[in-house]
């Protein structure tokens, strides 16, 4: 009798919890949302941009309207929503997610908190840890990472030693000061996106190189996964692990770069407007 009871409840609960996926008629363990709109567009509101789905404004999870400062970013978000097929897969919509986080700020953090976090992260940068066991890997790392490290030291006018074991390398106070000043020069959405990119690459140096257009996102991801690639050459490549990982990291880094570029671009374009034009625009 007891066993009977157990079976009947255990068959009911999963059917309650799971939703049926319409396209594959299999059980899925997470809720999917169907695409409920036909087209995605953008509207301009003074010098801010909003995304619309069938004339309704896109909102953040907290219920605020999703407002961005730059036109290309708004267009890219609209294109992202437009690219959804039957169901909306929000996990792959990095641009929307980054703008949502910047607007809602769920962690209630400030730019200083993020800068602090990044400075804590910096000594554990991937590029600062070179292999001390395998000669071949060590040579490869020196060859591939060396130029980036050199560029970094020249660009920020700092010297940084590298670690050969597990102990993180020493970071001078000068380096910390220079990096802190640089991080705080970004505005909040850009800094938020920067952290996202750093966490994907596990390296702030690579992310800085991307922001400065020294590396492309694809190259940066390759450098971040250098040891993995080295091992893959010997042990073989599995698409559902390695290629999936590579594609995801590249998408994440590219998305965060787009947000950073758009935010820095809006600043420079605002600075370029001559004062006479600005006053005439204000009076119109």
């Amino acid at each position, binding site marked *: 009798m007891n066993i009977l009871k157990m079976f009947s409840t255990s068959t009911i609960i*999963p059917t309650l919890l799971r939703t049926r996926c319409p396209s594959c008629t299999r059980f899925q363990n997470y809720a999917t949302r169907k695409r409920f709109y036909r087209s995605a567009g953008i509207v301009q509101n003074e010098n801010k941009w909003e995304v619309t789905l069938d004339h309704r404004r896109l909102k953040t999870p907290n219920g605020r309207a999703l407002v961005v400062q730059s036109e290309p970013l708004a267009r890219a978000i609209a294109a992202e929503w437009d690219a959804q097929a039957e169901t909306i897969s929000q996990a792959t919509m990095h641009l929307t997610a980054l703008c949502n986080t910047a607007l809602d700020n769920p962690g209630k953090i400030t730019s200083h908190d993020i800068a602090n976090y990044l400075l804590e992260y910096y000594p554990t940068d991937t590029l600062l840890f070179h292999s001390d066991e395998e000669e071949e890997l060590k040579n490869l790392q020196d060859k591939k990472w060396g130029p980036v490290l050199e560029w970094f030291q020249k660009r920020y006018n700092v010297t940084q030693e590298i670690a050969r074991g597990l102990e993180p390398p020493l970071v001078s106070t000068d380096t910390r000061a220079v990096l802190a000043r640089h991080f705080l020069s970004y505005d909040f959405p850009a800094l938020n996106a920067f952290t996202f990119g750093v966490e994907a690459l596990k390296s702030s140096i690579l992310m800085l190189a991307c922001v400065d257009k020294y590396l*492309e996102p694809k190259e940066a991801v390759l450098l971040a996964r250098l040891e993995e690639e080295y091992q893959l050459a010997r042990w073989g490549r599995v698409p559902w692990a390695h290629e*999936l990982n590579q*594609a995801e990291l590249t998408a994440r880094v590219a998305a965060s770069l787009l947000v950073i570029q758009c935010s820095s671009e809006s600043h420079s374009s605002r600075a370029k407007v001559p004062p006479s034009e600005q006053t005439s625009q204000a009076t119109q």
Partner: protein
Amino acid sequence: MASITTKPALVTLRQLLSELRKQSSTKKLAENQMVQYILSQYRKHQSTDQQLCKAAEEMHYKAKTYYHYLHSSRQYKEINVEFKGKGERSVEETAKMVGFKMPHDPKP
């Protein structure tokens, strides 16, 4: 040198358009707002040829970044769909695997 009309920049344009064609839900590519915007930006930066123009280099980098974003996220989705797990087996399926029937299984 730093012009948007150089060959690599045009290659990026073609790659971008091809990605957008694969992803956009509009029938014609020309109706897509992003395509219209990209083409207008390319035209806008076309005339700054033969100068040490920082904007064009920036535009090309941005275009490449956007292409990488579109391409990688599509690739990610494709791999994910191909190798996605089917989820857990139900109690009934598990019972069937080992040759059991559910206690209240209706007889056919």
